[in-house]
C-alpha cells in the first residue's frame, strides 16, 4: 500500500525529471546548450561529469589545463550538494524508482542493501583500473544515464535506434533489480553515485529527526526508513550514512507526525 502512494513531492520529482530530459533533447536543436549529463557545454563554460573527471587523467596519463575549471567546479558542486543529482536530475534513478509501479503485483520487500557497502567501491575501482590499463574511457559501458542520453541524442538527431550494451543491461538486469529491490543499482553499484557520495562532505539540506516527536520507540513506525530509496537508516543516521542522501524529501513527506525537518546546515 505504501508503494502505491505518490505524494506531491514525488509528482514534482517525476515532473522535473521529464522536463530535464525534454530540455536536454530539445535545447541543442535551438543551439542553447550542447550536451547531456555526461558533459555539458554552455557556450563559454564546460561541465564534465565527476566520474569522467577522474577517468580522463587515468586513461590519457596526462592533465590538460582545459579540464581544470570544469573539474574544480564539479567537485565543489558535489561537496556542497551531494547526491542531489541522483534524486532530481538522473533519468535512470527516476526510472528505477518508479518502474515497480508498472509491474509489481506484491509489495516490494524491505531487504536493506542488495549488496554490501564495499562492493560499490570495488566496482568504482574496477572501472578506474580498466581505464588505466586499456587507455580508454571505460565507464561508458557502465554508465546508464550516459548511454540512455546517448541513445536519445542519436534517435533525435539522426533517427537511428541504436542497441547499446548498457541499455540492454539497464532494461534486463538493473530493471529486474529495481522491481524487486528498488534503487539498489544506485545505492550499491553505480560508480558515478559512489564518486558523488564519497565527496559530499558538506552536503547541505538533509533530513534531521526530532527525537521528541518521533514515534519510533512507541509504535516501531520507521516509515522514513522504509520509503528511503537510498536505504539510509534515517532515525539513527550519522554524518557518513547521510552522505548517500539524494534529497528526495520522501521521508519528510511521509512522516506521520512531522518529526523530520530538512536542515540547511547540521
Amino acid at each position: 500500500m505504501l508503494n502505491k502512494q505518490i505524494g506531491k513531492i514525488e509528482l514534482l520529482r517525476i515532473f522535473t525529471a521529464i522536463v530535464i530530459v525534454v530540455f536536454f533533447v530539445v535545447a541543442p536543436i535551438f543551439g542553447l546548450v550542447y550536451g547531456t549529463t555526461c558533459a555539458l557545454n554552455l557556450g563559454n563554460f564546460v561541465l564534465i561529469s565527476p566520474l569522467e573527471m577522474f577517468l580522463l587523467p587515468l586513461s590519457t596519463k596526462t592533465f590538460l589545463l582545459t579540464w581544470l575549471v570544469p573539474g574544480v567546479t564539479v567537485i565543489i558542486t558535489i561537496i556542497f550538494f551531494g547526491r542531489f543529482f541522483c534524486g532530481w536530475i538522473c533519468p535512470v534513478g527516476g526510472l528505477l524508482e518508479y518502474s515497480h509501479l508498472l509491474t509489481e503485483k506484491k509489495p516490494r520487500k524491505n531487504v536493506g542493501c542488495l549488496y554490501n557497502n564495499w562492493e560499490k567501491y570495488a566496482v568504482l575501482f574496477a572501472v578506474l583500473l580498466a581505464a588505466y590499463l586499456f587507455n580508454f574511457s571505460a565507464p561508458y559501458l557502465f554508465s546508464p544515464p550516459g548511454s540512455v542520453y546517448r541513445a536519445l541524442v542519436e534517435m533525435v538527431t539522426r533517427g537511428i535506434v541504436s542497441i547499446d550494451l548498457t541499455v540492454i543491461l539497464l532494461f534486463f538486469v538493473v530493471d529486474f533489480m529495481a522491481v524487486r529491490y528498488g534503487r539498489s543499482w544506485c545505492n550499491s553499484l553505480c560508480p558515478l553515485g559512489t564518486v558523488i557520495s564519497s565527496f559530499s562532505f558538506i552536503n547541505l539540506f538533509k533530513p534531521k529527526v526530532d527525537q521528541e516527536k518521533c514515534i519510533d520507540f512507541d509504535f516501531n513506525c520507521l516509515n522514513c526508513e522504509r520509503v528511503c530509496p537510498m536505504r539510509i537508516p534515517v532515525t539513527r543516521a550519522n554524518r557518513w550514512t547521510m552522505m548517500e542522501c539524494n534529497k528526495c524529501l520522501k521521508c519528510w513527506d511521509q512522516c506521520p507526525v512531522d518529526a523530520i525537518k530538512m536542515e540547511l546546515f547540521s
Partner: protein
Amino acid sequence: MHITRREFLKLITEGAAALGLLKIASLIPYPVQTNLVRPPGAVAEESFNALCVRCGICLEACPTKAIVLAGYEEGLKAANTPKIDAYSGPCEFYSGRCSREMKCSKYCPTSALRLVSKGQVKMGTVELDQSKCLAFMGQECVVCKEKCPVPTAITSVNRRPVFHGEQCVGCGTCVYYCPASPKALTLSATGARRINA
C-alpha cells in the same frame, strides 16, 4: 568476523558470476581501428579513444549530420565514438557552414577534437570505383567535380573525373552528392593527418 551461511553462499555466487563475466569480456575481440574517418581536428587515434567521453555533443553540434556513432562492430574501444559517415551528410569544414570554425571541435568538452585551421586538416581520401561511375558508363556526369570544395582535387579529363589523392581533404562532399546507385565513391582514412595530443 562472523559470516552466516547465507552471506557466504551469496559471496561465492557473486564471485563466480564476476569471473564468468570477465571470461566473456575477454573473449570479445577488439582490434585497434585505424581506418575510421574521424571528424576534423581529431587527435591521433590512441589519444582520441582515451580523451573521448562518448557524450554525443559533436552529434548535436554538427549542422550537416555528417557525424554518426561507431558501432560495437568497430571494436569495444572505438564503439560509440564519433566518425564521419559521408552517406549521412557532407562535412563542410572546408567551405560551407563550418568554414569559419568547426562546430564539433568548438563544442568538444575534453579536447578530443581541437580547433585547428582548416588548411591543416586531412580527414582521409576519396577513391573512385570506375565500374560504378556514370561518366565511365558514357553518361554526362561531373557532379563530384562541381561539388568539390577544393579546386584542384578533382579534375575532368575527357569529361571523366580524375581524383588527386594528395589534394583531397576527405570531406566526403562528392560522396554525399554522387548520383550513382550504388555510389561510385568511397571515403577512407588513408593518408589522414592527425594532431598529436
